[in-house]
């Protein structure tokens, strides 16, 4: 009897410890980044592009990478939306959402979601070589779009599934075609689309492996789709490899910027989802 009680307590303590480690790892990571990055943070970092001798520790910032990342992540998310909204609607509205094909497609997109970004990056590079495009903003956007489509489709799919069936039936019974019904549904899922956009943007802005070969790197802010673009994660990666202490410090500061951006996006997405869903018919 006592042995059972002891076992129960032992494992309860073990569980609390495990939870502390798992939950605490988040604070450990963010704490480390803030602790190391904050001393090197200044206005120049986010308002200036790299000046002459930036990579040996002279003045400048990573504005080029910040803007480049926003371009790549924004472009990919917009391009991805144009593809994934119709796909999500097709799965749920035209295929009915609950049969064998629809479930098969869901699994297919889950599998696509699992394919690592390095494979998308290598494949994107293959396509670019095939079409004779050099590493550029366009190449980066295309590779990252491949990466975010599964995220967008699966998120939108989940959102559409929460729309009450009565709403579809009501529009169908009034004589609407499936496309007209879809328009009603799109209006219903607007907050969900926001969540999907933020999720995809967050993933896109943080990914390195897919832009490594496709977007290139440049000290200037790209002005056209055919120019190479720097991205924030890549800037962190390159600067961290430098032997100069000052440059390494800037890597920490860049990491801090990226962390803050991503955390804001994550918090926003969950807050938005909650707030907008109040006005929806459930």
């Amino acid at each position, binding site marked *: 009897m006592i042995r*059972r009680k002891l076992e*129960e307590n032992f*494992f*309860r303590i073990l*569980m*609390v410890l*495990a*939870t502390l480690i*798992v*939950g605490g*790892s*988040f604070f*450990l*990571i963010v704490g480390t*980044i803030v602790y*190391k990055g904050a001393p090197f943070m200044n206005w120049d970092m986010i308002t200036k592009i790299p000046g002459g001798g930036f990579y040996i520790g002279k003045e400048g910032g990573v504005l080029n990478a910040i803007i480049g990342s926003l371009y790549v992540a924004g472009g990919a998310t917009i391009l991805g939306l144009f593809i994934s909204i*119709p*796909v999500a*609607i*097709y799965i749920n509205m*035209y295929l009915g959402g609950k049969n064998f094909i629809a479930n098969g497609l869901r*699994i*297919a*997109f889950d*599998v*696509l979601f*699992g*394919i*690592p*970004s*390095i*494979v*998308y*990056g*290598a*494949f994107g*590079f*293959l*396509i670019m070589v095939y079409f004779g495009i050099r590493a550029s903003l366009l190449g980066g956007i295309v590779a990252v779009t491949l990466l975010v*489509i599964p995220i967008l*489709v699966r998120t939108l799919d989940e959102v559409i599934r929460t729309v009450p069936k009565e709403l579809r039936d009501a529009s169908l019974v009034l004589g609407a*075609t499936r*496309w*007209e019904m879809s328009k009603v549904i799109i209006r219903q899922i607007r907050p969900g689309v926001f969540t999907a956009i933020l999720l995809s943007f*967050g993933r896109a802005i*943080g*990914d*390195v*492996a897919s832009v*490594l*070969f496709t977007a290139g790197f440049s000290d200037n802010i790209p002005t056209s789709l055919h120019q190479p673009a720097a991205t924030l*994660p890549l800037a*962190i*990666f390159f600067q*961290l490899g430098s032997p100069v202490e000052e440059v390494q410090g800037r890597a*920490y500061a860049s990491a801090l910027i990226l962390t803050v951006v*991503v*955390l804001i996006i*994550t918090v926003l997405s*969950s807050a938005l989802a909650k707030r907008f869903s109040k006005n929806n018919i459930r």
Partner: protein
Amino acid sequence: MQFRLIKDKVYSKLMLGLTVLSVSVVLVVGIGLYLKSGPVLEHSSWWTLLSSSQWKPLKGLFGFFSFIMGTLWVTAIAIIIALPLCLLTSFYITEYAPNRVRKILVPFVNLLSGIPPVIFGVWGVLFIIPLIQNHIAPHFVEFSTGYSVLAGGIVLAVMIFPLIVSIVCEVLNTIPRELKDASLALGATKWETIKKVQLRKAKPGIIAATVLAISRAFGETIAVLMVCGNNAVTPHSVFDPGYPLPALIANNYGEMLSIPMYESALMFAALLLFIIILLFNIISRVVLARLERKLAL
């Protein structure tokens, strides 16, 4: 009237086209990588490529054994660390934690999943590497720089925490309440219920989550590349540096294309990753989907 129906038809076909197109990316990626790795496959057989550890691109020798072992080492370490911790955490969240605690905990697990890989890499370099170099390695080996498969494994473990915890929690929540209640009513403690009822019931889900986590760990590139040491030798202990496949691709691709067959060999590495991860993903996703459907009824 007719126009509306035509519009519906047209949109239907357009959407079907987009759907087929985006799903066929899997096929296109597979075929593209296979075609590109053709030259190196003609030169040497699958078996030689996989089992030889001779990596001398200049002589045309491409043996992936060391890289495969590097990948396996970091993945195995990551799973060994992450799985017990995540299972205990999931049980705590679903069974023990008061509602207040749960409401705080779950968002943090989600936040963790949103952190980009490169940040994990920076954290690994700043925190894990010194920790191993100064505090862990000296107890076991004479000297270690800290850049090792162990560092890669730890960083990966933290990266897959959110994935395993969220899936296992979901699986645990779908277990019928009656089963738990029956066990508790017979006088079993909570832990005994977990051990003898829930673990058994959740087994397929836990296995699927693990397989999914393995495939995630397999393909993770940049975080591992930053902490693993990238030395093309087969690791023999956890303090040895390793060189996982994705890191190999990321480090060399686009640079050494003048060496014959180098590109093809790297494409073969990508193909290898792709096939393994595809298989793992399909298995675990089908298992999870089946679980979900069974419980929805």
